[in-house]
């Protein structure tokens, strides 16, 4: 047998802080053969990025390898000299980073940054190096490579930047490519392109890849083998099919139940959060790290000693699990406890948005603009939005960054006023009513849950006082004692202990902060709550809990939920109605079922296709969009999506605004393509076993 590209044995990594040695990764084993792609998956803090950096022997000043070996093509990286290591880095092992913008030097042209690699490792001259760089930019499918070579990083889009980083990694033809969350910072449609690129390049360049991600769906789509990590340990490893189909670790199963799958449904198959929290590295329990959160925990056995990685078979690279009870549990029969949510009928109309339009004026102070006399330009953030929301209903607004969904939220909240159109909320037109002019009742009945858990609470004030302020502000209670009681009740509602009232936000985890944010939004008994990506910044296990909580409270209060998200899988799970936006306009809207099945708007279709699916029983058609999102400053006169559309018809798309077709009452699609043609499009997802046409991926023309 040939020597594996990478062979990691019993690797132990630690960080050394003032508090002492903190083990970051324990007992890590991995073998990667030529041309293979391995995935490391786990939630934040599980040590997966540390492993990647250890492979480059780059752990910073306070980190170190305390045990084990990392052999690259048989040579141990741990014992290499600095010079050997330097020659290895960038040449034989290369890395792609999470934030492409940050990974590129802002004050050097891309050409020079790329050229450095062959100059440094192969000693070629600048001209040759630049030529090589240009070839690679072509290889990563960047058009106009010459322009990009001369550009600075900030002059190109995020997707382009990531392609540059990938090109940089591949320049010296490395044998091993480390990909650390390479798509997390990108929009979903861009992500799809990068994922496809990585897969193709693996074949073209023959690299072995180590793919690190928190996203099970992405791992499934990109990797051959998967290593599930939890709290510094691999808890389960095996081939994709083994791990995804016959999961044998309670944590892995927990992960799968916590993420929305195409088959999950909020009423029939709700998400199941993993209870508890990830233990801090220096407070790990004895025995199984996952023990305290495990439904199958058995005192005396699971917390007795360190749990070894147990092989399920004797194959050379078997499916292995770090659980002593894996063969005792009846995996088929196991159903975790979960509160089922009853289906609710939508009530009366709460919100009606009619032809709402929001333009921002940009004053162009350049001389040229002044000469032309046209120094005011408009950013068309929202263009004639119309939709309704009813009591108890969850309406999702879906779209990628820059689609105008946040602007719409601002107008709704009264932080901005609409340029045109009406927003009727409980009968009042609030489109032109800034928040200062709204009555406390109006404000209180329209509240918001924010995206970033670290920013949603003011770090300077206690949790209790921040909730109390809302209660006071909306005049719900005035007596101090009653306010306090109400704060406690709200904390009960979001399932947080009452003594959290005295805590400061920094003492809370992300999920807990988000719960407080929800409590704060519901403090004024709102009729409608706008949730702006409330779970996107949270780990998957926490996401499920917060999502479920939101739904429960919604049901208990009969609240209308306006859910803003870019994640179609969450939306599909959660929403009753979906509004798909692109560049400030509504492309499609309808009930969840209507939007998720043909006829699709081509953009909806692309979005659906871009969602990574962790469920191996589903197959999906791949549609990769070309190009980047156009700027909202100069939206095309025709269909905003025309420039990237995979079903582009011709000039009509570019010049004429699309008509709105209504296949069903309430299901509206803005597209030039005849309805019949749209209806003929096969669904993006299909059950694997069905054996119909869904098996063959359809790539956009």
């Amino acid at each position, binding site marked *: 047998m040939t020597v594996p590209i990478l062979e990691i044995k019993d690797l132990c990594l630690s960080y050394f802080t003032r508090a002492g040695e903190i083990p970051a990764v324990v007992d890590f084993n991995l073998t990667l053969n030529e041309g293979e792609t391995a995935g490391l998956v786990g939630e934040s803090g599980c040590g997966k990025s540390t492993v990647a950096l250890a492979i480059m022997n780059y752990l910073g000043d306070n980190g170190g390898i305390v045990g084990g070996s990392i052999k690259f093509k048989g040579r141990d990286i741990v014992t290499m000299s600095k010079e050997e290591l330097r020659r290895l880095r960038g040449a034989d092992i290369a890395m792609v980073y999470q934030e492409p913008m940050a990974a590129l030097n802002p004050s050097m042209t891309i050409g020079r940054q790329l050229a450095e690699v062959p100059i440094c490792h192969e000693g070629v001259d600048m001209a040759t190096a630049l030529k090589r760089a240009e070839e690679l930019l072509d290889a990563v499918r960047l058009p106009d490579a010459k322009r990009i070579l001369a550009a600075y990083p900030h002059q190109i889009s995020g997707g382009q930047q990531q392609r540059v980083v990938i090109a940089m990694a591949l320049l010296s033809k490395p044998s091993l490519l480390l990909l650390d969350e390479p798509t997390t910072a990108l929009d979903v449609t861009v992500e799809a392109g990068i994922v496809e690129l990585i897969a193709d390049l693996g074949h073209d360049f023959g690299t072995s890849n180590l793919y690190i991600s928190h996203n099970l769906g992405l791992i499934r789509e990109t990797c051959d083998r998967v290593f599930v990590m939890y709290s510094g340990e691999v808890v389960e490893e095996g081939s994709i099919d083994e791990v995804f189909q016959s999961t044998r670790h309670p944590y892995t199963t927990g992960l799968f139940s916590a993420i929305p799958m195409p088959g999950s449904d909020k009423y029939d198959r709700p998400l199941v959060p993993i209870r508890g929290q990830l233990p801090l590295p220096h407070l790990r329990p004895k025995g199984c790290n996952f023990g305290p959160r495990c439904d199958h925990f058995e005192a005396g056995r699971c917390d007795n000693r360190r749990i070894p990685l147990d092989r399920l078979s004797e194959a050379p690279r078997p499916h292995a699990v770090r659980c002593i009870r894996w063969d005792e549990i009846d995996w088929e029969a196991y159903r975790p406890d979960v509160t089922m949510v009853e289906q609710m009928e939508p009530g009366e109309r709460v919100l009606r948005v009619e032809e709402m339009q929001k333009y921002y004026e940009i004053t162009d102070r350049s001389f040229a603009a002044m000469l032309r006399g046209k120094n005011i330009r408009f950013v068309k953030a929202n263009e004639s939005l119309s939709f309704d929301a009813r009591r108890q209903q969850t309406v999702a607004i879906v779209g990628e960054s820059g689609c105008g969904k946040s602007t719409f939220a601002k107008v709704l909240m009264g*932080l901005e006023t609409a340029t045109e159109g009406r927003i009727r909320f409980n009968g009042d037109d609030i489109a032109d009513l800034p*928040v200062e002019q709204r009555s406390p009742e109006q*404000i209180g009945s329209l509240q*918001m849950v*924010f995206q970033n858990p670290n*920013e949603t609470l*003011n*770090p300077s004030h206690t949790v209790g006082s921040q909730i109390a302020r809302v209660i006071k502000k909306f005049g719900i209670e005035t007596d101090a004692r009653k306010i306090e*009681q109400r704060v406690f009740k709200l904390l009960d509602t979001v399932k947080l*202990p009452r003594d959290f009232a005295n805590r400061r936000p920094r003492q809370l985890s992300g999920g807990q902060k988000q719960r407080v944010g929800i409590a704060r939004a519901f403090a004024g008994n709102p009729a409608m709550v706008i949730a702006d990506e409330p779970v996107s910044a949270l780990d998957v296990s926490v996401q499920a809990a917060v999502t479920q909580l939101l739904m429960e409270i919604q049901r208990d209060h009969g609240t209308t939920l306006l859910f803003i998200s870019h994640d179609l899988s969450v939306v599909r799970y959660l929403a009753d109605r979906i509004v798909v936006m692109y560049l400030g306009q509504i492309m499609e809207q309808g009930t969840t079922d209507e939007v998720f099945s043909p006829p699709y708007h081509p953009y909806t279709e692309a979005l659906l296709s871009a969602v990574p699916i962790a469920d191996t029983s589903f197959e999906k058609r791949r549609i990769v969009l070309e190009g980047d999102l156009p700027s909202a400053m100069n939206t095309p006169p025709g269909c905003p999506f025309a420039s990237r559309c995979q079903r582009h018809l011709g000039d009509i798309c570019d010049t004429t605004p699309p008509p709105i077709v209504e296949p069903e009452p309430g299901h509206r699609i803005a597209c030039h393509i005849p309805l019949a043609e749209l209806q003929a499009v096969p669904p993006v997802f299909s059950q694997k076993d069905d054996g119909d046409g869904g098996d063959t991926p359809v790539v956009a023309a």
Partner: protein
Amino acid sequence: MTDNAIRSARPSKIMQYLRRAALIRESWVGSIGLGIIVFWVAMALLAPLLAPFPPNAQYVPFMAPGFNLPPTGTFWLGTDHLGRDILSRLMWGARTVLFYAPLATFCAYAVGILMGLAAGYKRGWIDDVLSRSADVILSFPILVLYVVIITTFGASGINIVLAVTFASAPGIMRIVRGLVLDLRNRDYVAAAQTRGESSLYIMFVEILPNARGPLIVDACLRVGYVIITIGVLGFLGLGLPPPDPDWGGMVNETRGMAMSFPHMTIFPCIAISSLVLGFNLLADGLREVSLRD
């Protein structure tokens, strides 16, 4: 847990601040700085008790450190050219310095924070006007500004405070404005806005407390700088009017004699440098600690 128990478990505000302040122990640099400052604050507060002589009383001029004049007492750091006890003057001088420098800094902060909050939160023309005015003031070399102000309006404590306020507030405004520009985009500010909170509430309750970290660090540095400024003005003869001791003035009055009687000059120099060092070290320590958070 009962509600009452929860309430009693709530730590008092003062304790919380003390606990935060105690974090400085984690930085030995900061601890030393704090130690120096505490030493001088103690000297200042206890000057009436500790100082062996009245600060302006005149005994025998030019006596070296340790001079003993029975039955009056011992002059541990010697006497100055007017026969005043240098140790006592340093102690009383600490009062002057530790009164005017923080007062001036505080006033500058009060103005600077107001301007910075308004400019950074309100933006628009308010920002334009305030920022431009700040630019104009900041374009003066700062000591030039002090000299012109003090010579025009006369040397007095209040004028020094006003001059420092006038000259420093724009710089503080810039810092605050920068912080506010960042903080105003936080979700909790949006949350407050969506509750219809007034601008004043948002500026002072939601934004300002979160800007305090960098501001406290800056304030420490600035107090040090103001101490130097007051010293320099004293040195140039534009400082606080005598006879009340002022360290810069003490250096100024005696430096002509430093060759023969170095003690008269060197002790005030050490005093002023050590206090500035204290503030600089504390600022460094605070920064270090706050980065660790």
